[in-house]
């Protein structure tokens, strides 16, 4: 498909090389890896190889620490529910108020069951206050779940340090690392991170495959019980085709790690600087000095994000927005609200997320198109007048709530 895809934090295209290694596992290598015959055995060996490829990408000590799941959300749910089940005497959870819904919705559900959930706040740049975190750490905390990198802004959290702090009070530490894996070099064997979630489709593997990293010795209670797959830690016949694909994608991500952090970062920076140079009243959200190399989240004041996306789409450009409208909810992105971004800017945030397939020409095209789109929508905005916002825009237009 033609078009410029700058929405790689939503999902990525499966690399052709990944598809190629997967194909035989739909047809000739269709066996069940649990079977005794050679149909199954070869598949079992392929899964073993994939497990080692993922182990390598994560810097895990052992391949048995890699548990294949169906997606990042399953890994998140498994990790948190296991930690609670394994430590019934501990009734508290610490997380942040900018996590992905995979964590936040589960936590608010657990609150109904009587668990106490502490939500760490962030500052205007999306950063945590570790002294607030330290105060909340007690022997009542079963698990801390903090994302490695934020999906909307790309901002990193200091998960390695936070895992050590959690261990000091005997709490388990989980991180939702779906945005970070493949873009950030990891060496989990040297950390105290107990559990980590991976999603295949964020790193050019297919959708429907994920990983839960489980450090050896971490007490564990499976979510799905049944057969002995994944050493009894995740029952259900293996998605062997996708596991093989994820293995290949992990290997390729390992090879591209430097490229992601140099070339992709350079393109992202060029895109961001190019847009900001031409568009007034626009700013980067999150912490630009400490974030994923591929992500740029820009707030365009006084206009609404869905309208921006529709116009971008008309030019064949794909991005995403934190506006309420794009999700059908009533509030703009919880991440933007947590950072205290005013409504008039939060609704106009647009996330551009690049990949190693993004090109210089694409970046230049987007830099050319975006300012026109923003100007076009601002002409319709009741806050805007000519080429600048009205004086005291919040007073110039203060609608009756409807």
């Amino acid at each position, binding site marked *: 498909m033609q078009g410029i895809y700058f929405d790689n934090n939503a999902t990525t295209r499966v690399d052709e090389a990944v598809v190629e290694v997967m194909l035989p596992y739909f047809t000739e290598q269709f066996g069940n890896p649990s079977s005794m015959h050679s149909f199954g055995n070869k598949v079992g060996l392929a899964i073993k190889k994939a497990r080692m490829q993922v182990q390598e990408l994560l810097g895990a000590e052992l391949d048995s620490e890699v548990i294949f799941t169906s997606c990042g959300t399953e890994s998140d749910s498994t990790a948190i529910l296991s930690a609670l089940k394994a430590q019934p005497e501990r009734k508290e959870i610490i997380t942040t108020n900018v996590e992905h819904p995979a964590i936040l919705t589960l936590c608010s559900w657990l609150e109904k069951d009587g668990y106490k959930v502490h939500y760490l706040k962030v500052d205007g740049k999306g950063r945590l206050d570790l002294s607030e975190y330290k105060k909340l750490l007690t022997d009542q905390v079963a698990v801390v779940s903090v994302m490695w990198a934020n999906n909307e802004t790309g901002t990193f959290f200091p998960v390695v340090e936070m895992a050590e702090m959690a261990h000091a009070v005997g709490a388990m530490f989980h991180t939702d690392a779906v945005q970070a894996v493949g873009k950030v070099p990891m060496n989990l064997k040297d950390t105290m991170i107990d559990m980590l979630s991976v999603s295949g489709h964020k790193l050019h593997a297919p959708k429907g495959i994920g990983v839960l990293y489980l450090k050896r010795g971490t007490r564990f209670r499976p979510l799905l019980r049944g057969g002995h797959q994944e050493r009894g830690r995740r029952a259900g016949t293996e998605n062997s085709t996708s596991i093989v694909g994820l293995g290949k994608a992990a290997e390729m991500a390992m090879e591209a790690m430097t490229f992601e952090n140099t070339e992709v970062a350079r393109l992202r920076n060029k895109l961001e600087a190019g847009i900001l140079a031409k568009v007034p009243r626009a700013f980067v959200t999150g912490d630009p000095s400490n974030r994923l190399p591929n992500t740029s989240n820009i707030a365009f004041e006084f206009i*609404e*994000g869905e*309208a921006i996306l*529709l116009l971008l789409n008309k030019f064949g450009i794909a991005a995403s927005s934190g506006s309420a409208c794009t999700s059908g909810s009533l509030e703009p992105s919880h991440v933007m609200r947590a950072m205290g971004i005013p409504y008039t800017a939060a609704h106009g945030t647009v996330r551009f997320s690049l990949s190693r397939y993004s090109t210089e020409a694409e970046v230049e095209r987007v830099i050319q198109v975006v300012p026109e789109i923003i100007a076009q929508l601002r*002409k319709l905005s009741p806050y805007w007048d000519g080429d600048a916002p009205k004086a005291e825009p919040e007073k110039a*237009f203060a*609608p*009756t709530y409807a």
Partner: protein
Amino acid sequence: MWDYSEKVKEHFFQPRNAGVLEGANGVGDVGSISCGDALRLMLKVEPDTDVILAANFQTFGCGSAIASSSALTEMVIGKTLDEALKVSNQDIADYLDGLPPEKMHCSVMGREALQAAVANYRGEVWSDDHEEGALVCKCFAIDAVLIEDTIRANNLTTVQDVTNYTKAGGGCSSCHEGIEEILVKVMVERGETFKPSAAAQEQEEAKPAGMTNLQRIRKIEAVLDAVRPQLKRDGGDIELVDVEGKTIYVNMKGACSGCQMEALTLQGIQQKLMDELKEFIKIVPTKAGALSRASCHP
């Protein structure tokens, strides 16, 4: 991505009457910046005749908010104020060949901007009387505030009650957990506990007091007769097939059958029947599952 009609896209990409209207003498500012949709409607009204000579808008909002604003201006220009005030939010949505349920509030905002602008022209103060909550039932576009208020006002205790009173949960049923949560919350307030098993029981008591089956069927026929001319104008018709307790089976005929608007038409008739019979009934088209089809593709 939203499934916007071509008409919505067209009004979004080429909005009519956008920008400041010089010499406007009626201005309505409505919307909510927290929700991300707000609109200023500007009218130029001829004082002698009350005819709207010009209408412009400025909108902070999504594609359907801009399209609804644009459509609204086209719809009211040339009308008198009283005629314009007859434009309902459904008329705006229809003008745009429909809006997704999550986006119906954009048409509501348009209607309210119109009321506010007319009030402003007449020197009156317009106050908004509705509050919007999170969308719970996507099939029928019913939000949490409406469900909560209805539960409270009528002492409802079951999901079925909520469906009977608001239609929420009457389609695909995936919002039943959400409805139960609201029930739990409101029932706790009045010192009761929500019992999921209570739902099944009260189902089967049928006809309301004081009406024989014959009287009931005659009433139903009378309602259908009343809507028939409208359907016939569009080349369709409706026929009563059977009445079984609270379920009324009908045949949609001619152009009505399989029409995209069939579900909407049936919902309207269902409402009229409920008003007339003073009880909850369900209208079921016998030839095709029109209502359920609408439910599954909100």
